[in-house]
């Protein structure tokens, strides 16, 4: 039946795609189990005098557009005012962030607000470095990080604290993030669905299956003792969160998923900003793969093996498979080559497509008010548009990553532009 080299190539790529679909299937289903577990749970109150002292770090670099609102929402958290301090690391900003921050601090003289302004000598070396500067000046036994564009819900902090208190093996607890500007344009609607889907599958699903989560960069709580042992954040990493997650698992702790704590963040509203941000994420994943590849073979790696394998699988195998199958499809469509396996590649494609749309719909059905006609439509077109952009980014990111490694470029702030 199989006649040419193309047939074998196609078969291999189809198998890779099938395998990815299978893994995502399992993740979505376990996300559903996790959803059933967490749904309908009542809010639990912690006695006020048992609340631990928490330090909230907000790294900011030229965030004058959003920082005031963020700080205000964190000041208004439903948590004892005397039990948390807010440390804003205004890192090497050239805008008027410093003035804005100082003004808010003056307006709230009885609150613990610390503002650290750095210049290009004392700081300016990226988010990890900024977080380390803040960490050095913090007092809390638990550290919470919010990005400078976040609006946490009132109970977000309380829920995180509650979760980490009741789970001693949890090195960190992560909450959810949602897209605040989801109704702005088509891109933010895509990002909104992507965010919900990713958290359902990757966070809730992995947590249910392997007790495995990765820190999403915002709205998470981490034990100070762990940070001290790790020596703070890794300043070489591009995506410091994935990096620190891996190191937490290697220490024998796990990261817990807490779906009750939600923070709303601003997502890119233009394609170019989105492209730069995602390129950084992709490069961060490449960094993690290359750095941790060999730990696949160590005994103490534990459940993060899944993540390393998953990354390798997605970037090294799935993407090439997708490109090859698209390529062969185009060639055979143009009549340049003939393949005998075309028949079920259509079936596989339809399967992948239907499963993708349904999985997105499943995950948005868990969020109140998201399962509506417009979102169904967006899920239907997402596969042909938004997902294709991702494969371009994966390739561009790889090229850029290789360039970075060979020319040894220095890590600086990868700033996501605000709106």
């Amino acid at each position: 039946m199989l006649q040419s080299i193309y047939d074998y190539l196609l078969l291999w790529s189809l198998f890779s795609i099938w395998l990815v679909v299978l893994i995502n299937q399992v993740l979505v289903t376990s996300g559903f189990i996790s959803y059933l577990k967490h749904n309908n749970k009542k809010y639990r109150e912690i006695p006020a005098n048992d609340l631990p002292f928490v330090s909230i770090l907000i790294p900011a670099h030229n965030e004058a557009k959003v920082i005031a609102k963020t700080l205000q929402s964190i000041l208004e958290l439903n948590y004892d005012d005397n039990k948390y301090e807010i440390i804003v690391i205004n890192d090497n900003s050239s805008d008027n962030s410093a003035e804005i921050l100082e003004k808010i601090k003056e307006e709230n003289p009885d609150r613990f607000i610390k503002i650290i302004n750095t210049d290009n000598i004392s700081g300016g070396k990226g988010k990890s470095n900024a977080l380390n500067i803040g960490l050095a000046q913090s007092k809390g036994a638990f550290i919470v990080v919010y990005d400078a564009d976040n609006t946490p819900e009132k109970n977000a902090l309380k829920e995180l604290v509650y979760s980490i208190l009741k789970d001693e093996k949890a090195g960190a607890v992560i909450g959810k993030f949602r897209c605040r500007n989801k109704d702005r344009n088509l891109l933010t609607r895509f990002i909104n669905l992507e965010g919900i889907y990713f958290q359902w599958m990757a966070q809730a699903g992995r947590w249910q299956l392997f007790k495995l989560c990765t820190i999403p960069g915002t709205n998470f709580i981490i034990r100070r003792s762990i940070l001290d042992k790790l020596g703070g954040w890794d300043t070489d990493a591009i995506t410091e969160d994935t990096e620190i997650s891996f190191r937490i698992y290697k220490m024998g702790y796990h990261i817990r998923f807490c779906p009750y704590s939600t923070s709303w963040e601003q997502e890119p509203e233009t394609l170019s900003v989105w492209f730069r941000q995602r390129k950084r994420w992709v490069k961060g994943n490449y960094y993690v793969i290359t750095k941790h590849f060999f730990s696949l073979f160590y005994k103490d790696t534990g459940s993060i093996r899944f993540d390393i394998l998953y990354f390798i699988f997605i970037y090294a195998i799935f993407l090439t498979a997708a490109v090859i199958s698209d390529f062969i499809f185009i060639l055979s469509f143009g009549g340049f080559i003939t393949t005998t396996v075309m028949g079920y590649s259509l079936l596989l494609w339809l399967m992948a497509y239907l499963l993708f749309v349904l999985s997105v719909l499943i995950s948005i059905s868990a969020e109140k008010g998201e399962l509506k006609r417009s979102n169904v439509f967006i899920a239907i077109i997402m596969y042909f548009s938004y997902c294709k952009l991702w494969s371009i980014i994966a390739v561009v990111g790889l090229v850029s990553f290789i360039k970075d490694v060979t020319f040894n470029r220095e890590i600086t702030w990868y700033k996501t532009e605000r709106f």
Partner: protein
Amino acid sequence: MENKLDNRISSRIDLVYIALITMFFILLIVSSFMGLSQNPMNVFLIFILMLGTIIGYYAGITAAMIYSIIFIFLYASYSIFLNISRGIPVGNIVYFWMLIVPLLAVISAYNGSLIKNIQDQNRSLRKENAEFVMIDKETGLMNSHTFFNELQVFMKINERYNIEVYLMLVKMKYENEVIRILGESKYKRMVNMISKAINSMLREEDKKYILRDVNMFGIIILSNKNGGKQVKNRLKEIIKNIDSEDDFLINSVKLEVQVGLVCYNAEKISSPYEFYKMAERDLEFDV
């Protein structure tokens, strides 16, 4: 606004039903024209389809979609496997099943959620309604729901203005025997007759209630010294002499009532319920 909302839900249900009927019609046409019954696999798939619609209806849209993705994945993988290993071609029917199973499961889940929505609405409306209804439909007297509320008010009036407040409970004598001999419908007529008698005999400002759940009438009377006793005797007399013009069977049963009467005393009685209980105990002495 409310009306608009209801209309929207009901028109959606209509649409969903039409969609369901259409889908089954398509299924029927496809299965007869494409000879589905020849392959036992298709019969099994119809079973899968039915299971999906049932799961969707009971467990909701998310469960229906989870069911669908598991089905699609397994079925498509199986078809691809058959194609590669045995060269069985992928027929159109495979695509048909891959689309119709999730569609029907989701439509049925949507239908279920709409119906559940209406049921919930109905339940809460009924509950609200029951709380609002204060007048008994058949006798025109106020019902037990109002009774305890107003009893409290009269107790307060007594405490403030020192007017005597009587609570009178009226119960048909040999009630069970009456029902057994005459049947429910005649019994109902007798109850209505008693309520008419009570209504005509008492003053407008005396409060009359029908307490359906305990088969009694409750009467609250404001009076001076010993006023209650006189009312009690007169009431018993009148009811004894009731006769039904058109029903000799009712006349043959001697209609008699037991009456319990208590005068409110703020020192002995602290709640409407206690007040009521004392009157109920007094019933026993009326032999």
